[in-house]
């Protein structure tokens, strides 16, 4: 684990990671014996989780790792934390590296809060004496002064997270591996998390940050890499990489459907199908944008008695925020002849927090039966806001103060 360059604190060199996926879990003696007598060659699927990834992180950098779910991002994180061993290549780092992948590692429900602090602390490398010194601080930060001698199983999940986070933030590391998944929980806890990330940045800590949230990446990271389909596809300034990440979703924007591009995100029997989904006006919404408007054109490929069409808006976490369809709105579309086209005009009020969104559209029979065309991510748009609020929706909330003298 020797890294030569003075500035470089972490170096990943041409790493590959393969996983063996046995067809059948052969974990009992019987199956192993059967294997011995039936076939010599075990049927094994080799899954390439990462191939030929190299990058370096310099001291004091806030370094982002971006990638969609299933891109190999989590595997990379586990390789950096030395939880996994690379199949080929090497990971080297200097100083103490603390993984911040999951909170409360080793927490035991049968132990008291106090005992868990010491156990969790030990896993993070603190001696009992060192935990003694930080103990007051940890308890105060977690706001659990009155509960430390109770068993953890009597804590609410919020209390457990607070305690775990409080211990973890005391870790004195040279390199921190932070998974943004940490910032789950209520708004107050999220704020604490982001405050902590900010303090790391201010103190010039070396941080490796994994996130789906491009506004967070843009705010914190200096540099970033993008992992896509097990490969490192680009590396550079965080802003640039964040844009590139968003483009992974935006790529299919304004695609008119001529061919038979059937993907996982699009399916149905196509007795009637979308031909064009287009955002009207700017794809970049701001605080002053009142709404996002788009049109969805579809064409009957055979005579259709009646059809229901709907749409929904999905955020980058994959949550469908809102949506509706013609059935709910009591709009009837009936008796379409083969070749006939129909255009729907949609308008959603701008209730969306800062982030990237995709539009899903659908065509189906009544009661969502017999999907004709389900198209996820038919179009994309982006929202930029001054106020970054940790909520699912951010409608225009009015408030006023009335004071009595």
């Amino acid at each position, binding site marked *: *684990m*020797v*890294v*030569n*360059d*003075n500035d470089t604190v972490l170096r990943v060199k041409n790493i590959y990671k393969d*996983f063996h996926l046995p067809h059948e879990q052969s*974990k*009992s*003696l019987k199956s*192993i014996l059967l294997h011995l007598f039936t076939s010599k060659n075990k049927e094994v699927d080799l899954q390439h989780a990462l191939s030929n990834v190299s990058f370096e992180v310099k001291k004091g950098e806030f370094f982002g790792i971006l990638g969609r779910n299933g891109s190999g991002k989590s595997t990379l994180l*586990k390789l950096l*934390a*030395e*939880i*996994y*061993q690379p199949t080929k290549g090497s990971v080297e780092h*200097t100083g*103490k590296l603390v*993984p911040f*992948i*999951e909170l409360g*590692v*080793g927490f*035991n429900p*049968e*132990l008291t809060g106090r*005992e868990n602090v*010491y*156990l969790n*602390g*030990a*896993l993070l*490398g*603190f*001696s*009992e004496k060192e935990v003694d010194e930080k103990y007051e601080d940890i308890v105060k930060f977690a706001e659990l002064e009155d509960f430390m001698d109770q068993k953890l199983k009597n804590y609410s999940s919020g209390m457990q997270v607070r305690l775990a986070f409080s211990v973890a933030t005391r870790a004195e590391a040279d390199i921190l591996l932070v998974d943004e998944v940490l910032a789950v929980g209520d708004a107050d806890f999220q704020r604490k998390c982001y405050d902590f990330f900010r303090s790391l940045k201010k103190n010039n800590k070396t941080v490796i940050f994994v996130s789906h949230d491009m506004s967070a990446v843009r705010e914190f990271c200096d540099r970033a890499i993008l992992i896509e389909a097990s490969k490192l596809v680009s590396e550079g300034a965080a802003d640039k990489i964040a844009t590139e990440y968003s483009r992974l979703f935006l790529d299919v924007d304004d695609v008119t459907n001529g061919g038979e591009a059937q993907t996982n995100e699009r399916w149905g029997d196509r007795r009637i199908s979308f031909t064009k989904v287009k955002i009207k006006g700017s794809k970049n919404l701001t605080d002053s944008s009142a709404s996002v408007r788009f049109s969805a054109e579809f064409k009957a490929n055979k005579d259709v008695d009646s059809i229901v069409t709907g749409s929904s808006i999905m955020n980058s976490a994959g949550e469908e925020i809102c949506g509706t369809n013609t059935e709910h709105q009591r709009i009837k579309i009936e008796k379409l002849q083969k070749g006939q086209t129909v255009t729907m005009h949609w308008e959603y009020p701008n209730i969306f927090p800062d982030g990237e969104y995709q539009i899903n559209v659908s065509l189906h029979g009544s009661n969502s039966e017999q999907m004709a065309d389900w198209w996820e991510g038919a179009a994309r748009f982006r929202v930029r806001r001054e106020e970054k609020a940790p909520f699912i929706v951010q409608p225009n909330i009015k408030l006023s103060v009335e004071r009595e003298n």
Partner: protein
Amino acid sequence: MVPSMWSKYRDKYRYSLILLRELVITEFKLRYQGSLLGYLWSLLRPLFLFVILYVVFVYFLKVGHDVPHWPVAMLLGIVLWNFFAEVTNVGITSIVNRGDVIRKINFPKYVIVLASSMSALINLLINLVVIIIFMIIDHVSLSWTILLAPLLIAELLLFALGIAFFLSAVFVKLRDVNYIWEIIMQGLFYGSIVIYPVTMVLERGKNIAEFLLLNPVAQTIQDLRYSLISHSMPTLASISGKLWLTIIPIGIALIVFVFGARYFKKHSPFFAEEV
């Protein structure tokens, strides 16, 4: 930025020690949690087993009447056997039981196996206190050979640890191991001269006794009876008349330990994906 090998070594060692300490404390706290008598059970369990075996073997079957201090010697054997059984049985499943932690953070895995053996060792020491009380009641006279006891316990610990290291690593891949080990342990219990005196075997033949005593468990139990309770206890050395023969069980214990530890070390980097 090349950290000296020494400081790296020390840091790594330091982490292991911190973890070991905390894991031993936790395991000890958790063991008898919620039970009324708590730690007393680690004394009561072998004592009750002793009472049962005493009634069956000594009182009814008249085993060991010709052996001085046999009841105490039998209790010592039971306590040592329990120690061996605890280190191996708890050790085998220890890695899999800590799977959730292994999947989330990187740390020296051997600490887990070591921690479970340390709580067994603490148990043994508590039990030895009871033995000493029985020895005083039974008017056992102590000799200088008591100084050999720590070495013999260390030998037994190394042997048990070697097995625990090897089997815990195999158990990650093959879950039948603990059942196989259970069966081996049942055979080993009767083969390790725990609940009957060696003199009973000697009646059948010197060779059988010698063969049984090549097993490090039997050898350490018998040598500990010799060193703590009475020099009239037959040992491998006294039966064969060759002191050097004792090197064989000691050698077996060491080889098993080195092999087990190396096997464990080779496989431990992959526990996180396999567990």
